[in-house]
């Protein structure tokens, strides 16, 4: 049984308000033979400058320290890539540091950047993440990804990370999904939704107009997960500029949007699912112990927490984030979210870990239509739209950049600039992509608060980034 002390559970606190001023990203794709990594990082930073109508040089003049998210040195075959990018961005001799936390690298990079500003160390920082996953073909890439498992106890078992992950999916599928065809179709619906939203996103790597049956007929990777249930392997970069209030206002003097308040928290759990010990469910503000008393009766086999069906790291970062910002109920308090949909089934698990639905009932978030931009059942706006970018399944998973891409997406809604960014004909042309004739504006009307979950491996690291319009914060002293 794992127990936590009061000190370990306390809500984190920033020493001063922290703002996301601007963000940018490169095109995302499976391979970019025509670009060096520095070129995509420059693309992201120059875009961030353009969004607030300053020159890259002027923006850089405010930056005091830099936080670089790049997970897989062996993929890019370059150690100390952070130093190389830092130099190419013309930011020497500022202090910089690399951040590596698997799939959560982008979120962890924002975590470090936000803390640097919150502490007063820097007034303006760059958080930049990238990944280069095209230097080896897919089988070799799977081998490299499997190196993120325990090298003695797990990696030699097939050198396929999907397998280590999918044993958890199997448990969820049979216990909470009850291996029902209807649940399998719900999972497929997530893929249809994310590939479909990716069609409206010029940065996205895998736009597809597909059906539930297309997903169900795609090749099996690890049953019940099929190829279209899985995230992408990508190349790309994304960045964010994080500032204190005074610098945020200075940098935003010509910006069409206002800076957003930002908070980032983190949680963790074992690298090996094998090591997970049983514990009581840590409750979020919208939950009670009572509602979980008969879990095993309702879901025979739900005898452990987190067992192989929950992600303790995700629950903990949500616990910290909600305590820090005053969120009581994410569905009521938030307007738009981006989740780490590494697999369709892990998307469902996340709904429960962060309290959108109670444990065991994640599927209802999809089945109710709440997760859509426009609820297909009612034709009205979805209650809490998720992954309008297309997520990791439809947009990208350039690991070090992913958590920052998510923040950019959420911010673009809060800035009310989603259509401007995503509908721009020039951008579609620049990326050599065809804007669909039925392109749809996915701006969430009136969005004031959003959240992004960035998640590593089998849940070893998870971060929660919360963004709010400064005039709509929940907790005044947050």
């Amino acid at each position, binding site marked *: 049984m794992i127990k936590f002390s009061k000190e370990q559970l306390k809500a984190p606190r920033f020493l001063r308000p922290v703002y996301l001023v601007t963000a940018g990203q490169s095109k995302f794709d499976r391979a970019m033979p025509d670009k060096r990594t520095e070129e995509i990082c420059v693309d992201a930073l120059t875009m961030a400058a353009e969004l607030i109508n300053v020159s890259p040089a002027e923006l850089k003049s405010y930056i005091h320290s830099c936080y670089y998210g790049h997970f897989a040195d062996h993929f890019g075959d370059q150690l100390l890539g952070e130093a190389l990018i830092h130099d190419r961005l013309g930011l020497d001799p500022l202090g910089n540091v690399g951040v590596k936390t698997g799939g959560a690298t982008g979120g962890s990079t924002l975590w470090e950047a936000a803390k640097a500003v919150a502490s007063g160390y820097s007034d303006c920082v760059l958080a930049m993440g990238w990944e280069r996953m095209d230097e080896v073909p897919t089988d070799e890439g799977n081998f490299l990804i499997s190196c993120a498992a325990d090298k003695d106890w797990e990696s*030699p078992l097939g*050198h396929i990370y999907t397998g280590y992950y999918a044993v958890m999916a199997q448990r969820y599928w049979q216990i909470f999904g009850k291996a029902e065809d209807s649940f399998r179709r719900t999972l497929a619906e997530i893929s249809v939704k994310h590939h479909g939203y990716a069609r409206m996103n010029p940065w996205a790597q895998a736009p597809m107009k597909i059906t539930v049956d297309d997903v169900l007929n795609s090749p099996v990777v690890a049953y019940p997960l099929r190829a279209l249930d899985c995230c992408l392997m990508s190349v790309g970069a994304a960045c964010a500029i994080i500032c204190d209030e005074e610098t945020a206002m200075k940098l935003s003097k010509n910006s069409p949007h206002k800076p957003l308040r930002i908070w980032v928290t983190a949680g963790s759990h074992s690298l090996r699912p*094998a090591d997970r010990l049983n514990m009581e469910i840590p409750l979020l503000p919208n939950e009670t112990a009572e509602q979980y008393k008969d879990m095993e009766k309702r879901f025979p086999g739900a005898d452990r927490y987190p067992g192989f069906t929950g992600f303790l790291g995700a629950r903990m970062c949500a616990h910290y984030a909600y305590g820090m910002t005053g969120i009581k109920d994410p569905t009521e308090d938030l307007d738009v979210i981006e989740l780490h949909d590494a697999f369709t089934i892990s998307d469902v698990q996340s709904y429960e870990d962060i309290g959108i639905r109670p444990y065991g009932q994640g599927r209802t978030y999809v089945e109710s239509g709440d997760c859509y931009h426009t609820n297909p059942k009612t034709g009205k706006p979805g209650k809490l739209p998720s992954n309008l970018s297309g997520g990791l399944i439809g947009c990208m998973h350039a690991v070090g950049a992913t958590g920052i891409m998510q923040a950019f997406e959420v911010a673009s809604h809060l800035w009310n600039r989603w259509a401007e960014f995503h509908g721009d004909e020039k951008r579609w042309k620049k990326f050599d992509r065809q804007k669909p004739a039925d392109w749809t504006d996915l701006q969430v009307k009136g969005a004031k608060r959003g959240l992004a979950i960035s998640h590593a491996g089998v849940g070893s690291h998870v971060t929660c980034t919360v963004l709010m319009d400064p005039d709509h914060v929940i907790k005044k002293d947050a």
Partner: protein
Amino acid sequence: MSRFADVYVKNNKYRINGDFHHMTPNLPIRDADNGMKLLGVTNPREMTYIHSYGGEAVFFESLSQGKLMATRCDSKNCDSKGVIYQPFRIHCPDCLGKNTIFDMTDIAKKTSKIYTFMVCERSGAFNILEKPIKFINIEFEGVPTILMSYMSLGEPKFGLKVVPIFKKQDPSYTIVDLSWVPAGTDKKDLPNGFSF
């Protein structure tokens, strides 16, 4: 003439023999859509790493002898006193004291059940297991952790009783020397090199 890299330890120092890398020339990558202009190069590389199991070495050696070793915290004042760890943990995660190593082969033979599983059609480069790979996670009576491994025979399902088998013949001294079959499997059906 190259030879396989091999290593032994003397006086707690590595003594290495043979070739730890092999040279393969790089080749240009050219753009077929643009007059075959140069875009990059391949970087072939074959290299042997030297890896120590440290305090876990006894676990991997024991597999080749048909034994499944585990550890247990026996620290007097630790909240986790008596907790058994499989996977093997050198130190107790609570008190950080050194755990006691013990043989849990009998426990595994009598109480192992499949907690979850996955049949995986794909693998990564350097995989040596036969596909589809039947990943299984095994729970043992009295052990709070759940070991990950793979099944060599039969079809996995929740709650299925399984028993360990060990690659005692030509062991690789890696985790793949441990596999599982349904309880009641005849020894003549075991994969080549494996025995109970």
